[in-house]
């Protein structure tokens, strides 16, 4: 017998025992407190156990626009501190990837000094794009653009994770894909609508003052005008798109620095807007949700209605006190994701740093639910950017159960057919092949568990195919052994030559399949990726079992080389 067979046999035994231990929790229901060392079960893909798979895209154009507006405002404030009077000019976004914003100097003679000052303070985030008369125009700095992209992505992932953690999903997966995509997988989630709402909601909280100089009648007149010009909310359109379109259409009517926002009343059951009230609010916001310390559900004892209580951080509390003090008598709109929740009149300077969001009409339970989710998203933080649902797949639990059953059954039938054929065609050697195939499937399953890969429906297909293809290794060796036997070799020699000569054919064949598998892994998402992983793992286990394990088994079968005939 070949040298080292004892070592190889022990290695095989250890691997088999380890694999059996790895798959045990999947097939037998172990109690939580049992002392069995392995606990992890196989990860079932969303298509098998139901759940939600989403690809969210980041709308960077909007981010750039908001950044450049916010910096223009900051720049005007900075100039004012240095004694230079200026006003915020207009936004120019012909290239949405690189929007610009102008600053109008009151005195043209201040230009050089203003440029100097702004370079000193904003050299990194801003770059000068136009310098003419009393106008300075700025775009965002090149490096700063890249930085925005990186932070937007990582911050979004962090926020989504926080929200999901509070929502409570076992084993969620949140990963980035490329530079502008986030993939979220929530297995086993029941309340899909709520989960979607919690994740997709930007939860951007802003406090903006309302311009009450324009009467509601004029506002409605403007809206009528926009409607006549074709700007109207269409079913299925994104609400935020509609709002930005209205503001674009009315840009010549609106006073500078103000835009239209709505308070929306929805019918809770049908999700249809029942009432819309327009407001004229500031374009930027002096105070935002970033300054929030805490958001909790409270109950108004008098009216027995839930609301969301907000606590600001010290810095936010200071800003809140300042702006309320300076704007007594004005209305302060609390704007969430572009919609006005409420707009109470500021009665006086508010110290202490707390505020509240009152919610629309509805019965106690639904208001409570709304308050809870709102407090949750505000606590978890706002998404730094608006996310767009690019791809979304929901699988109900019963589809998976039925599909598993059928695919499993078919895979078993297929495997049974192949293995009985092998036993019939190659006799004793076929039996050895059968043992190696069974071990192959065992190793594939245990590897899937150990690397934490996901078994999807195409994955089951992958295992079935692995069985079909794995016998190829055995067939290659056996056909070779038969050839060598026909050429007059003794069984012992024929087996040795067969294994030797077949090795490279097996290796080459599997490497080429692996190359295709790697391309698939690189391309695929979700279930397709599951198939690729299963295929790749299957290739590794196939090479090991159909070559090395068969060899050990043959060595045992042939013993010391005294056998005169071989059952093949």
């Amino acid at each position: 017998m070949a040298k080292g067979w004892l070592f190889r046999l022990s290695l095989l035994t250890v691997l088999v025992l380890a694999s059996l231990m790895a798959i045990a929790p999947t097939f037998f229901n172990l109690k939580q407190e049992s002392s069995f060392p392995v606990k992890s079960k196989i990860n079932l893909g969303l298509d098998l156990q139901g759940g939600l798979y989403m690809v969210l895209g980041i709308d960077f154009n909007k981010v750039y626009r908001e950044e450049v507006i916010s910096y223009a405002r900051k720049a005007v404030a900075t100039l004012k501190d240095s004694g230079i009077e200026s006003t915020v000019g207009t936004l120019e976004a012909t290239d949405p990837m690189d929007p610009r914003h102008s600053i109008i100097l009151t005195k043209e003679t201040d230009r050089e000094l203003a440029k100097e000052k702004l370079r000193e303070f904003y050299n990194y985030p801003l770059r000068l794009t136009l310098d003419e008369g009393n106008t300075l125009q700025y775009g965002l700095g090149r490096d700063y653009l890249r930085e925005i992209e990186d932070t937007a992505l990582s911050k979004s992932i962090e926020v989504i994770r926080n929200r999901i953690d509070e929502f409570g999903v076992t084993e969620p997966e949140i990963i980035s894909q490329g530079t502008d995509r986030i993939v979220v997988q929530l297995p086993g989630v029941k309340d899909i609508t709520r989960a979607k709402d919690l994740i997709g909601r930007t939860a951007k909280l802003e406090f903006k003052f309302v311009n009450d100089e324009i009467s509601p009648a004029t506002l409605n007149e403007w809206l009528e005008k926009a409607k006549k010009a074709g700007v109207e909310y269409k079913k299925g359109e994104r609400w935020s798109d509609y709002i930005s379109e209205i503001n674009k259409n009315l840009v010549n009517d609106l006073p500078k620095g103000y835009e239209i926002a709505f308070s929306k009343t929805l019918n809770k059951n049908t999700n249809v807007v029942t009432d819309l009230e327009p407001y004229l609010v500031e374009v930027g916001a002096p105070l935002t949700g970033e300054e929030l310390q805490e958001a909790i559900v409270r109950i108004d004892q008098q009216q027995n209605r839930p609301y969301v209580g907000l606590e600001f951080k010290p810095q936010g509390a200071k800003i809140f006190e300042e702006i309320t003090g300076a704007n007594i008598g004005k209305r302060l709109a609390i704007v969430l994701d572009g919609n006005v929740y409420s707009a109470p009149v500021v009665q006086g300077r508010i110290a202490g740093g707390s505020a509240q969001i009152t919610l629309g009409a509805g019965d106690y339970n639904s208001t409570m639910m709304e308050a809870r989710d709102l407090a949750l998203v505000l606590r978890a933080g706002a998404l730094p950017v608006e996310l767009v649902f690019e791809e979304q797949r929901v699988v109900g639990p019963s589809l998976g159960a039925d599909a598993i059953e059928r695919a499993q059954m078919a895979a078993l039938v297929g495997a049974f057919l192949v293995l009985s054929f092998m036993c019939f065609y190659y006799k004793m050697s076929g039996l050895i092949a059968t043992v190696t195939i069974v071990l192959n499937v065992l190793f594939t399953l245990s590897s899937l568990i150990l690397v934490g890969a996901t078994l999807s429906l195409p994955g089951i297909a992958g295992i079935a195919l692995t069985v079909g293809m794995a016998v190829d290794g055995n067939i290659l060796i056996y056909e070779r052994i038969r050839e060598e036997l026909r050429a007059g070799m003794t069984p012992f020699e024929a087996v040795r030559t067969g294994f030797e000569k077949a090795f490279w054919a097996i290796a080459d064949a599997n490497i080429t399949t692996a190359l295709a598998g790697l391309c698939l892994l690189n391309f695929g998402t979700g279930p397709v990726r599951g198939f690729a992983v299963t295929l790749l793992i299957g290739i590794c286990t196939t090479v090991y079992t159909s070559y090395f394990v068969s060899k050990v088994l043959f060595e045992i079968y042939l013993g010391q080389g005294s056998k005169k005939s071989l059952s093949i």
Partner: protein
Amino acid sequence: MATTRNVNYVGMFKVAGLGSLLLIVGTVILFFTKGINYGVDFRGGVEVMVKFSEKVELSELRELMKNNQVPLSQLQSIGDEAQNEFLLKLESDKGDLNAVSNQVSSVLTTEFGEAKFEILKNDIVGPKAGSELRTSAFKALAWAILAIMIYLALRFDYKFAPGAIAALIHDVTIIIGAFILTQKEFSLQIVAALLAIIGYSVNDTVVIYDRVREIETTHPHLSTTEVINRALNETMSRTIITSMTVLGVSVVMLVWGGSVIHDFFFAMTIGVILGVYSTIFIAIPMTAFYEKFSTKKTA
């Protein structure tokens, strides 16, 4: 026990090649006339699979969606009629697909009540994601073929590469042709199947190349055509047995595996048959042809 026959496979190359060429031309014509029936993955849009607990007529459902202005583009029942399962495809070129999909469930809730139906599956693919998936799918196929070509050139000899690649392109093209002809949906799963077929089809080819190389070293006096015919004949029993086992599994999965993986194994089954055919009649003989051609040129 199989004995080694002596069939002149290389001699059949011209006939087989002509047949394959016709199939490929047919596919190209189908591609431009009928076109691929892209699934929601590649086309973008909304697909809702719904199961009712009691009998619902197809026409009734269609009427309901129409009356509620749901942009339904296709409606079909799945599996047995008794299962009451339907697939609704919705299209919306602009606006929020999410809202369109919610519309379906709210219409169904108002009409039937929440207890009477279940959403089995709901896929929403935005137009941007759809077209990107399409590009990356074809890229993945191209990369796989390229990677295999490089491997073959490095491991064996550059003369082996053209035949193997021609065979791969041949297999993939004709399978796509079969999908156009039957108007089955071309989805992500099918791309996965195509890549698996690429891996599998070249498998056969490589095993025979391996034998070609071996015979070349042990019998240096044989001509390329003789070497190739001999290699094909010697490995034929292996080729047939392996293909039969894979085909067996594939057909069983196709027939009993359930609707979700049906199309995947439809592709697989055709792919396995094509894979063997193209290995024997295209990939390997083409090597002889290529060699003859290139030696003539240099001579």
